[in-house]
C-alpha cells in the first residue's frame, strides 16, 4: 500500500517536472540564444548550448539602444504608481468598509462595474485628457493615468472588512480620528493584502506596453517593453542581429524573473491570497 503510494507520487512528480520545465523552456532558450553567435543560431552548426558564450552580446545590445534607461523608467514609474495607488486605495477601501455616508453602496457598485469593464475602452478620451493636461510624452503622464487601480481597492476592502468592528469602535470611543484608525490599526492588520496588491500592481506596471506606447514619443521616456518592441521592429527582421535581439529581450525579462526566484515563496503566496477575492 505505502509502496504504490510513493510510486504514484514519484511518477506524478516526474510528469509535473516535465510540464514545468517545458513551460520554463522559452526563457532558457532566450538566454542560451543571447549567448550564441549568429552562426550557431541560424547556420549549419546549430547546437543546444553556446560553444563559447558570447557575453559581449549584452554590452552590444546596451550600445544599440539605452535599455538601462528603459529599465529605470519602468522601475521608477511602477514604484511611484504602486505607492500612490496604495495610499489612495487604502483611503477609499476604508471608507467603503468602515465609514458611513450617503451613496456608499452606489459608489461600491460603480467601482465594481469598473472592474468588470475593459480599460482599453477608455484609451481615446484618456489620450485627449493626457494631451490637454500637457502630460503627453512624459513619465508623469504614464504615472498620473495609472493611479486608479480598482483591483487594489477591492483586495483592500475585502481585507479591511475582516478587521473586527469592536476594535474600530473602541478606538473611536477613545477619540482616535479615522485617519489614525486607518493607518495605525486597519492598515497594519492588512499588511499582507497591501504587499500582495503592491506586487501584482508592480508587475503589471513594469511590464505595461500598449498605453505607455501610445502616450510616449521620445526615446528617453520609453518603458522597457516599449523600447524593446521599437528595437524589435527596427532590428527584428534582420536575422543576423538575432542573438543581439535575444540579449536585449533577456535584459527586459531577467530582472523581474530574478526577483521572482529570490522571493518565490512570497510571489506564490501573493496570488493564492488574492484568490480570496471573488467578485
Amino acid at each position: 500500500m505505502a509502496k504504490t503510494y510513493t510510486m504514484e507520487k514519484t511518477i506524478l512528480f516526474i510528469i509535473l517536472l516535465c510540464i514545468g520545465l517545458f513551460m520554463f523552456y522559452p526563457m532558457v532558450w532566450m538566454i542560451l540564444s543571447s549567448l550564441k553567435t549568429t552562426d550557431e543560431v541560424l547556420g549549419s552548426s546549430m547546437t543546444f548550448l553556446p560553444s563559447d558564450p558570447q557575453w559581449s552580446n549584452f554590452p552590444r545590445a546596451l550600445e544599440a539602444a539605452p535599455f538601462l534607461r528603459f529599465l529605470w523608467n519602468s522601475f521608477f514609474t511602477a514604484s511611484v504608481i504602486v505607492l500612490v495607488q496604495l495610499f489612495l486605495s487604502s483611503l477609499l477601501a476604508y471608507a467603503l468598509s468602515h465609514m458611513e455616508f450617503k451613496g456608499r453602496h452606489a459608489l461600491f457598485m460603480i467601482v465594481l462595474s469598473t472592474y468588470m469593464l475593459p480599460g482599453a475602452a477608455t484609451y481615446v478620451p484618456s489620450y485627449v485628457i493626457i494631451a490637454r493636461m500637457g502630460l503627453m510624452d512624459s513619465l508623469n503622464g504614464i504615472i498620473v493615468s495609472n493611479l486608479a487601480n480598482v483591483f487594489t481597492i477591492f483586495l483592500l476592502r475585502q481585507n479591511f472588512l475582516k478587521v473586527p468592528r469592536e476594535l474600530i469602535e473602541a478606538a473611536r470611543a477613545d477619540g482616535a480620528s479615522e485617519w489614525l484608525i486607518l493607518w495605525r490599526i486597519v492598515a497594519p492588520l492588512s499588511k499582507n493584502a497591501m504587499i500582495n496588491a503592491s506586487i501584482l500592481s508592480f508587475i503589471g506596471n513594469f511590464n505595461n506596453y500598449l498605453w505607455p506606447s501610445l502616450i510616449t514619443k521620445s526615446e528617453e521616456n520609453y518603458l522597457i517593453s516599449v523600447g524593446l518592441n521599437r528595437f524589435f521592429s527596427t532590428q527584428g527582421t534582420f536575422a543576423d542581429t538575432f542573438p543581439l535581439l535575444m540579449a536585449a529581450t533577456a535584459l527586459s525579462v531577467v530582472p523581474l524573473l530574478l526577483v521572482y526566484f529570490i522571493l518565490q515563496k512570497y510571489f506564490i503566496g501573493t496570488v493564492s491570497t488574492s484568490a480570496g477575492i471573488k467578485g
Partner: protein
Amino acid sequence: MNNKANFWQILLFVAIPCIPLLIFWIIPLFVSVWLSFTNWDYISPTYEYVGLDNYIKLLKDASFLQALLNTLFFTAGTVIPTIVFGFIFAVMLNRLRRNVVFLQGLMFAPWITPMIGMSIVWSWMFDPQVGPINQFFSLLGLPKLNWLTDSDTAMWAVIIVTVWKNIGWAMLFFSDALTKIPQDLFEVADIEGASLLAKVRYILIPLVSPTTLFLFIILSLDSLQAFDQINVLTQGGPAGSTRTLLYLYYEFAFQQFNMGTATAVAVLILIISAILSFLSMKISKKYVYY
C-alpha cells in the same frame, strides 16, 4: 454602528481617491460612448454628429465581422484550455507533499515575464526554419508549419502563447481552492467506494466552482483586451486572421485617427464584456456552490 462621516472625512477618504478613477475611467467611458456618435478625426477641432452611422458602417464591414469572430474564437480558445489545464495541474500538484512550491514556481514564471519580451522570443521559436517548435515537430514526424505567416495557424500560435502565459496563474488559484476542501469529504467518498472520476465530478468540480467562475470572468476580460502578443507576433495578419476587436480599435484610433469608428468598436467591446459578466452572474446563481 458606524460613525456618520463628516464633510472633511468624505473629502479625504472618498472624493480625493476618486479623482483618478473619475478622470481616467468613468469620464472616458461616457466620452467614448458620446464620441461613437460623431465623426471626429482627432486633428480637426470640429466634428459632426452622425447618429448610428459608425455602428451601421461597422456591422456592414466584412473586416469587422471577421474581427468579431476572431475575438470570440480567441477568447474561447484561450480561456477554456487555461482553466482546464490550470485545474488539472492543480489537482496533480495537490497530490504531492514535497517540491510543490518549486513546481508551482516553474509553471507560474511565465506570468511574471513581460508579454512583449516573451512574444519576441516566441516569434523566433515559431520560426519555420530555425525555431525549436518545428524542430520538435519534425522529430515527431509532423509536418513543418509556417506558424505566423499562414492564416490557418497564426491564430493558434497567438493562442498558444497566451495560454502558456496564463496557465500558471489559473493553476495557483485552483491550488488555493483545493487546499480549502475539507479532507473528510474524500474519506467519506473512499468509504463509499467512489471512483477517482466520481470524486472529481462530485467533489472537486462543484467545490472549486467559485474559483472557476472568477477565473472565467477575469480571463475572458483579459482575452478581450489582448494586444501585446498580437502586435509582436502577427500585427493582426496574415489577411486579418488574428485581428481582434481590440486590435481593430487600435488601428482605427491610433493609426487612422478615425476616433468615431474607433470608439464605436470600443463601445461594442464594452457591451460584449458587460454581457459576459452578466451571463456569468446568472450562471453562477444556478451552478456555483459557495
